């Protein structure tokens, strides 16, 4: 007979951390399924398969990173994995990305998330930042342009809202905006372009209720976060006479609900006391709002979570003590934070200027190297063009040339539509000389092409002949994109002449 001595109690609840993480996994899988089905139905099987691939890559890279880590540290791989839950990080990360995310970027993000978000802190339970959040930040900042163009799905509501300056106070503009995404109800159901798991508020609310009921998450966090966000957006909306649905927009899009349910509730990186969790969520909502309004960034949710993760130890310290006796103090702390948030967003809200992206208020012209541009310059080749038509009239031939302009090449924001620049170029076929150059269609936006609209500039091409092509004639000091576009057109015509 052996009496096993151990400290009391000798009784355990059935609920284990493994169970809890299984519940979270299940919830994530439901959200992932929505993303897969939605992409299959909306965009076709290529997109659906792509979503599956994105998820597999993120989960695979996360798990593999841990496998390698455990092998290097000579730990039993399977049993260590079973209590480290890397797939949860992978799933969350995948669901925060869009369908066109580069798989390379995503796997780098996953590796970073696991390695620098979790393992170097000592593994599960010891990390300071939400690992998936770290991974997403890496994908966003390190691989911003790493998207796969084959999987274009259109602009997301938040990036579009960005273009509106985070304020819509004109009902007609609001209509245009909403109709771009099928209306509010569609935003709620989630059939619009966005990060895979973040679009369907409906699905997220359902799994959120499930997780709260299973006590896998504390309902206080999502409720406090979304509630505060709603309150702050209402403050901004009212003080700016914004459209009525303006506050709703803030919670329906940009991963607010996803972040509230899956990331802010991550117990490891949030405070342990109830008051702490509420302050944490309220703080995150305030920061989300500040980032959206002030920094004019669509990723307010993500960065607010990472910032609050950092503040978790301070919040914990704030609420330490006998919780029954501290109730009044704790309530006061929450209200103070909330009030500060309201005042702050009220102030920021007053600085907002509504923008109408359709009114062609353009982004600044990107800087271009101030160099002497020569016709032989290789960079001209980027401005692909073609001869649309050629009509001869005696010695003179008129070429109509279509050539890509700034918009086509550099303005990736799909909301704007650009057309090619189209030029009519008259040449003397006998002397192989350029006689005149005029616009047929000016595709570039006014500001970017200003200089080149000048007759003066167009005149510099006059009398140019074939030999100039070899002689590296300087075309313009401080070339603009449009000047390059025109030079490219000239070059195409000259080449045609030469043949």
């Amino acid at each position, binding site marked *: *007979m*052996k*009496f*096993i*001595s*151990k*400290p*009391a*109690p*000798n*009784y*355990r*609840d059935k*609920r*284990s*951390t*493994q*169970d*809890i993480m299984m519940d979270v996994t299940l919830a994530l899988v439901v959200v992932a399924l929505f993303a897969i089905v939605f992409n299959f139905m909306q965009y076709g099987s290529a997109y659906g398969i792509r979503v599956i691939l994105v998820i597999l890559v993120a989960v695979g890279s996360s798990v593999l990173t841990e496998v390698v880590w455990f092998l290097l540290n000579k730990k039993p791989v399977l*049993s260590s994995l*079973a*209590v480290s839950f890397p797939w949860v990080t992978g799933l969350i990360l995948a669901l925060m990305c869009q369908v066109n995310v580069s798989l390379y970027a995503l796997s780098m993000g996953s590796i970073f998330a696991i390695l620098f978000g979790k393992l170097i802190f000592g*593994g*599960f*339970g*010891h990390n300071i930042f939400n690992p998936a959040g770290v991974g997403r930040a890496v994908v966003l900042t390190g691989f911003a342009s790493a998207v796969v163009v084959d999987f274009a799905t259109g602009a997301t509501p938040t990036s579009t809202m960005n273009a509106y300056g985070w304020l819509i106070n004109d009902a007609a503009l609001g209509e245009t905006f909403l109709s771009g995404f099928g209306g509010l109800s569609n935003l709620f159901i989630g059939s619009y372009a966005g990060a895979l798991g973040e679009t369907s508020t409906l699905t997220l609310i359902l799994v959120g209720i499930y997780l709260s009921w299973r*006590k896998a998450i*504390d309902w*206080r966090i999502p409720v406090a976060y979304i509630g505060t966000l709603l309150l702050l957006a209402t403050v901004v909306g009212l003080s700016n006479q914004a459209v009525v649905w303006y506050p709703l927009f803030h919670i329906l899009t940009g991963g607010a609900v996803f972040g509230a349910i899956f990331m802010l509730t991550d*117990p*490891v990186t*949030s*405070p*342990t*006391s*109830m*008051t702490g*969790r*509420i302050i944490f969520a309220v703080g995150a909502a305030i920061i989300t709002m500040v980032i959206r309004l002030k920094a004019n960034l669509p990723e307010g949710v993500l960065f607010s979570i990472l910032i609050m993760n950092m503040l978790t130890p301070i919040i*914990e310290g704030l609420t*330490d*003590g*006998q*919780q*029954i*006796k501290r*109730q009044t103090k*704790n*309530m006061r702390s*929450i209200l103070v934070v909330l009030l500060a948030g309201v005042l702050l967003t009220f102030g920021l809200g007053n600085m907002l200027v509504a923008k109408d992206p359709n009114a062609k208020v353009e982004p600044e012209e990107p800087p271009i190297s101030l160099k002497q541009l020569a016709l032989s310059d290789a960079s001209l080749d980027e401005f692909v063009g073609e001869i649309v038509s050629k009509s001869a009239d005696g010695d003179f031939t008129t070429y109509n040339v279509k050539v890509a302009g700034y918009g086509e090449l550099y303005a990736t924001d799909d909301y704007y539509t650009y057309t090619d620049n189209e030029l009519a170029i008259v040449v003397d076929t006998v002397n192989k000389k350029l006689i005149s150059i005029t616009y047929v269609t000016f595709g570039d936006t006014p500001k970017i092409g200003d200089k080149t609209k000048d007759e003066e500039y167009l005149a510099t091409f006059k009398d140019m002949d074939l030999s100039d092509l070899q002689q590296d004639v300087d075309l313009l000091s401080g070339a603009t994109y449009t000047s390059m576009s025109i030079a490219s057109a000239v070059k195409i015509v000259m080449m045609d002449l030469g043949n």
Partner: protein
Amino acid sequence: MSLLVGPMQQHLNGHKDLTDHNEIIEVSPSKQVLIPLVCYGSNELELLVKENDKIKVGTKIALRNDKMIIPIFSSVSGTVVKVVKNMHDMLRPVDHLVVENDFQYEVEMPFNPLDPEKASPEELIDFMMNAGIVGLGGAGFPAYIKYKFAKDIHTVLINGVECEPYITADYRNMTDNIDKLIVGSKAMMKMANAKEVLIAIKETKQDLIAQLESALKDHSEIKVVKVPDVYPMGWERTVIYQVFKKRYDRLPGEIGVVVNNSSTAIAFANALLNGAPITQKMVTVSGDGIVKPSNILVRVGTPVSEVVAALGGYNAEEVNLIAGGPMMGKTMPNDTFVITVSTNAITVLRPQKFPDVACLRCGRCSDTCPAGLQPVRINEFEKARDVDSLVKLSALDCIECGMCTYVCPSRLEVTEGVRRAKRLIMAKKK
């Protein structure tokens, strides 16, 4: 449960059906009993008998006579052998008086019965003191002291909640002794000069509630209050908050309430009616590690090894042998310890093994701590040996209810960390 404070309680699987309706088994000691010479933490007792004295059931054998008066009585008749050191369920060896059992169980009344209807409150309090009635809910605090200092009491709360898993001794004691429960309760009401008695019973014990309610028809001053089946509903603060929705600082008297365990009331009635001190106990022996889980009637001083043997023995190679229930009872290193006046259960469980999982920081321990503490934070600062923070976290208010370990999904020994923290603070205080 409120917005900022967790539920501070939780339903546990009680496994009460293992024993609650079984036949009560009488377990008699073999040739010797070892009566612990320790009262409410003190072993500074005056021994009233010497070697080779012939004594009877009820003979007063020792007395604690300092700040509090607690007599100890023999549970068998026979011959005093000697005083030995033996393991006590407080987990340390203490003096025990060995009595050779003559199996006659000859009874001697150490005090005369008293009619509670006629006696004055003062007489009743003195009687309670001399009868050695101690709190049978676990702590063994002498019951008379509460009444001696009672002031502006409106309610006597009889605690029949019995929230520890597996234990059904109070329940069986009540179902079998309803009359005594009423006599004892009424006497306590008189002693406290209270207006009413509330008997708190778990709402799930419907048979007992029905039985009590019909017995209480003629006693309008006694009422049953049903409380939820959660842990630790049997803790004074929890049950008082449940019944009165009030919290107090140090003692329930602050809000006009005196609390006594139902078995204490029954033992008190037994002393009043029969002139009999506590020499026998109703004890639940249960768990998945014992062949025949049962409620037993057993004499104080009977070694637990004999109790276990009488119930068919252990049914596993390795067991956790617990003096008390699985939540608050101490895990014993062997089964040589004896049944004491305040023993209400012996729990035998098969040990469970769990994989190592890090603290999830889920805060469940804080949300369910009935004392409103933050065990996870206490554990963190205990590891850092940061006494100031531990004091700020009120670690000393921990009642060691075991809830934090119970709920911990990572299966950490959270309660033990809090115990270490308490020791750390105490060491610094000295």
